[in-house]
């Protein structure tokens, strides 16, 4: 579903991605782990073109997404994105945060979109927060609302950029639970995370990145219990 080949990304003279290859299959959950500054968030952001790549190709459903002819807005409708800092729209209540894009882009009528939004809010356990503004929500609630917002566009793939890193510890669980449910429903997911427990339990495959390169790629059991590369071992010994 996602096919990335030889991805390089430079910010000025700084090369943050130094040649990355990976695939994601339909229905697969891929977790990307690694130290800060390893380029994992940048890699994720390249997948929906929030960052342009310097070299290489990324194909999603066979379509070269960095091609000039690709309609980036149409592409992004297929990819839901969840950010570390939630980025809910503060001037819209939770319901309108969710219905905004479907109404604008799918020309869905407001009523239908609201029904859908309420269904999604039930799914993430926020049915009673529909008319509340984001500032009144806790971090965990904000992130669950942000997931519901991304799901409202019925994406084929969900991208998570450290979705629990900005949360108080006691709220991490509720967000991870929603993500687990999503994985169980068969959603294709790419998750950049520091939650090793989540990666181990939910991922089909884990990629360990360091210094702009994929160092190791394996099934979670193998990567966490028998890492092959010394850098992976070193990283895991620090975080586990």
């Amino acid at each position, binding site marked *: 579903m996602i096919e990335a080949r030889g991805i390089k990304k430079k910010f000025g003279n700084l090369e943050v991605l130094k040649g990355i290859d990976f695939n994601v299959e339909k229905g697969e959950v891929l977790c990307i782990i690694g130290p800060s500054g390893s380029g994992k968030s940048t890699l994720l952001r390249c997948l929906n073109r929030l960052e342009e790549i310097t070299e290489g190709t990324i194909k999603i459903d066979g379509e070269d997404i960095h091609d000039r002819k690709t309609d980036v807005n149409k592409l992004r*409708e297929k990819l839901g994105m969840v*950010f570390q800092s939630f*980025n809910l*729209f503060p*001037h819209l209540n939770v319901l309108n945060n969710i219905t905004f894009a479907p109404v*604008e882009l799918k020309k869905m009528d407001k009523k239908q979109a609201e029904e859908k939004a309420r269904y999604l809010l039930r799914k993430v356990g926020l049915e009673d927060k529909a008319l509340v503004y984001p500032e009144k929500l806790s971090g965990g609630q904000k992130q669950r609302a942000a997931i519901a917002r*991304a799901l409202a566009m019925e994406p084929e793939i969900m991208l998570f950029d450290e979705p629990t890193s900005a949360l108080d510890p006691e709220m991490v669980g509720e967000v991870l639970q929603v993500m687990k449910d999503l994985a169980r429903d068969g959603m294709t997911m790419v998750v950049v995370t520091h939650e090793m427990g989540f990666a181990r339990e939910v991922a089909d495959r884990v990629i360990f990145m360091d210094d702009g390169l994929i160092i190791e790629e394996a099934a979670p059991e193998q990567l966490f219990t028998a890492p092959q590369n010394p850098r992976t071992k070193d990283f895991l010994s620090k975080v586990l």
Partner: protein
Amino acid sequence: MDFIELFRESFPSLLSGLTVTLKITALALVIATLLGLLFGLMSISNNKLLMFIARIYVDLIRGTPLIVQAFFIYFGLPTALDFKINAFSAGVAAVGINAGAYMVEIFRAGIMAVDKGQMEAARSLGLSYRKSMAKIILPQAVRKMIPAFINQFIISLKDTSILSVIGIRELTQSGEIIIASNYRAFETWGMIGIMYFVIIMLLSYTARSLERRLVI
């Protein structure tokens, strides 16, 4: 002539001057807001040419006094380009274009004050830059702009007094005319000052309560 009589004689004409002042200010601010939005968006675009044009506009207007701009629009341009313009329109244009340059910076600052994650979130949902700007960024930016906008409103309202030099009978000019016939400078300028002051106070307080209601 006692003060009551002076007041009764001059107040109607001052009031009509005040009306003109408010009309010019209102029209000029509509122009300024449109100019500010347009050039403000240009100034944050990725297009170097658009940025450059916006920069020139701001620098040119901020770098020259309003009184010169008013003379230029009322006397200079019509002579050079051979057209006629009445004083009122020239005055509205002068204050509008002048305030517009400051509004560019107000818009720019307001937009930049919105967290950049907002644009990313909107774009990643599949919204175009234009739609994201119009429906997500600007509504938030405008709320942040209110205090600066009100400030500009007040400055422009007072700036209209400069238009007395091109013969518009706004509040200040009305005062000058009255004083020319009654020589009561102290009382008349006093009244004019109070009228400006009261209007601006009313504006400030309305704005402050508006701002409180619009906080996100």
